[in-house]
């Protein structure tokens, strides 16, 4: 079989570790030429559009945009870059990945030196507070928030004898329990799955709808005792057992394909997910609509722009942030790509409230998603939030696939989290 040296597996790790050892932030602060900067983003969030727009305003500035991969890969690449010392000038970090970086603010430029503390009032308090370090440094400016809703197929709802109007559909599920009941009706009528899966479409939504998720406001781990987490978990298990899910893991190939084939009628859709439905299932244009999320409000997702400490052109990067992430800049980006602004001053703007999406039967997405933020009770995202969420998700998926014991799933998840994060 494989003719490799006996040690190569260990070396794979060691090689990168050596690179890591050479790190340590350079403290010299070159201002750069101010005319060019390197920008790492992740795919699927359409930063290309934003960069194109910026070039129109500032034609003399060169932007080298690299879409590193998914949000997780981008955060990994950034960590390696910070450890190795060769960093981009500007980087987009997804909300769940941010706390690890905020805990080590010495790796980033304190954006207060460029005036971030003067404009921080422009952003939702709970959003900007996530990128503020304990000692006060602001290391990231928020670009968008999730906002929550449910996308559903009007044609399939009609076949199942359910209402298709988005107001009436929203009334079908004031609560998650009502959502599950609706699902049972749909599956009984059509014999098909109602929702894509229990883990992301139910658990990840419900757990994001309260004041306290895995951490309390002081930063202590409370995932074992937080009623919000347990309730969301139980709802997801109940959904899995109801037999109304397509058992397709989100973002998997089969999940994308099923979106176009109508193998499920409903999917929980944070604002950024609409873009994925459009791309994955272009032929279903006009068959979708967007209704309110059970429970009414919540947030899943959102990203931040940060400037690493060793950036060669921090000033040019900051100019980009200041121009594109101003309330007006975010509003324009929303109108083009649908990413929901983090700047509440534009939430009453007629252009935002009036935005309708033809792909989704002209649903007033601007109003639906901002409404979902207004009743929101913000919660703290901690350094291990992503790992904890992943283990809960895994336990639910295991039950959904018919392998895991639903009665033991909660204990399994807690045990796995304990192993994963060590506390």
């Amino acid at each position, binding site marked *: *079989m494989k003719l490799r040296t006996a040690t*190569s597996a260990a070396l794979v790790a060691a090689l990168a570790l050596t690179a890591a050892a050479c790190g340590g932030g350079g403290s010299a602060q070159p201002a750069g030429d101010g005319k060019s900067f390197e920008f790492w983003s992740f795919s699927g969030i359409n930063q290309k559009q934003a960069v194109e727009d910026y070039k129109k305003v500032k034609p003399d500035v060169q932007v080298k945009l690299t879409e590193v991969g998914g949000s997780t890969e981008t955060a990994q690449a950034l*960590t390696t870059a910070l450890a190795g010392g060769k960093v981009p000038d500007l980087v987009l970090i997804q909300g769940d990945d941010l706390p690890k970086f905020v805990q080590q603010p010495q790796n980033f430029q304190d954006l207060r030196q460029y005036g971030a503390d003067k404009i921080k009032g422009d952003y939702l308090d709970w959003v900007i507070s996530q990128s503020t370090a304990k000692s006060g440094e602001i290391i990231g400016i928020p670009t968008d928030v999730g906002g929550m809703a449910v996308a559903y197929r009007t044609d399939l709802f009609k076949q199942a004898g359910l209402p298709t109007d988005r107001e009436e559909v929203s009334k079908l599920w004031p609560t998650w329990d009502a959502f599950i009941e609706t699902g049972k009706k749909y599956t009984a009528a059509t014999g098909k799955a109602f929702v894509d899966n229990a883990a992301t479409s139910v658990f990840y939504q419900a757990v994001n709808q309260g004041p306290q998720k895995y951490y309390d406001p002081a930063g202590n781990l409370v995932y074992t005792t937080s009623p919000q987490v347990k309730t969301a978990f139980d709802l997801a298990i109940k959904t899995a057992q109801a037999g109304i899910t397509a058992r*397709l893991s989100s973002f998997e190939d089969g999940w994308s394909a099923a979106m176009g084939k109508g193998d499920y009628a409903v999917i929980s859709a944070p604002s950024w997910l609409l873009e994925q439905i459009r791309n994955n299932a272009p032929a279903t244009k006009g068959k979708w609509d967007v209704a309110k999320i059970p429970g009414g409000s919540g947030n899943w997702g959102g990203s931040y722009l940060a400037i690493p400490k060793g950036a060669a052109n921090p000033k040019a990067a900051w100019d980009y942030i200041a121009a594109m992430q101003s309330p007006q800049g975010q509003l324009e980006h929303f109108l083009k790509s649908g990413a929901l602004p983090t700047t509440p001053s534009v939430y009453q703007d007629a252009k935002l409230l009036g935005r309708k999406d033809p792909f989704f039967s002209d649903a007033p997405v601007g109003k639906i998603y901002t409404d979902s933020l207004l009743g929101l009770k913000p919660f703290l995202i901690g350094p291990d939030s992503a790992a904890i969420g992943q283990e809960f998700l895994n336990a639910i998926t295991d039950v959904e696939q018919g392998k895991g014991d639903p009665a033991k799933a909660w204990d399994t998840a807690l045990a796995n989290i304990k192993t994963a994060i060590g506390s």
Partner: protein
Amino acid sequence: MSATLSRPRSLPAATARVRHSLPERLAPYAYIAPFFLIFAVFGLVPLLFTFYVALFDWNPIGEHVFVGAGNFNRLLADTRFWNAAWNTISIWLLSTVPQLVLALGLAHLLNHARLRLAVWWRMSMLVPYITSVAATTIVFAQMFDRDYGLLNWLLGLVGAGPIDFLQSGWTSHLMIAVMVTWRWFGYTTLLYLASLQAVPRTVYEAAAVDGAGAWKQFRHISIPSLRPVIVFTIVTSTIGGLQVFTEPLLVTTTSPLTCGAVRQCQTLTLFLYEQGFGRFQFGYGAAIGVALFVLIIAIASLNYVLSTRIRPERG
């Protein structure tokens, strides 16, 4: 080595007779230096550094806290480590046994004297081996897909229910083992074939004259003459099997680092990668690397013992 110009320097008689100038004496070292320099930079130093890092709680962008044996204690108590070790062994068994048996049979067939287009048949064995692992894995993963896979479609034709290969432990292992086998059986076959070709044709002819059929020839001539190379392939496949990485990484798209929701097909190298580069626990990742290193050294030693003890029966 006995009667060449450059006798070992330890023999006084030799040094007395032939005097080498300093450049001449240094030249051999210069010739072998590139490998050892590159080995030192990319092999030895990182290896030693891994041992060092394994003693720390090492945050790549933060502090490095000395924890001594802490990472190793944690590793031994970590069910995920033992799960990964079991998965690795299971996948290794499921891929190696069929692979070696298949290669043995194929090598025997390809060694046949009257085979037409023999070179073409033999060379085509190497095609899977030169195909990119990533491409192979993606194609196989689609074939094994629960809802849209070719395999489940075929099962459906004969009335069998769809199998969710990835979701249960052993079917996911089987799926990966098939990929590994597919990629390596040709390589192993050619190794065996090369060894078989060294057996004088007359031995087979004599056996045939004595009335031995194909099966008897295979058992009593081919297998014994292949014994050293079989030992070799078993040992190298063990080393390779402990390092299976790309296949489990690529069979799932949503949870690549764990190879499924309950780590059903996470191998040791994948676990190392998850901890080191997914969670950035470099110290813990390094400790897994050290454990893997020890395991591989143990098996390499076994290689040494076996290869010095077992000799071919044929003189």
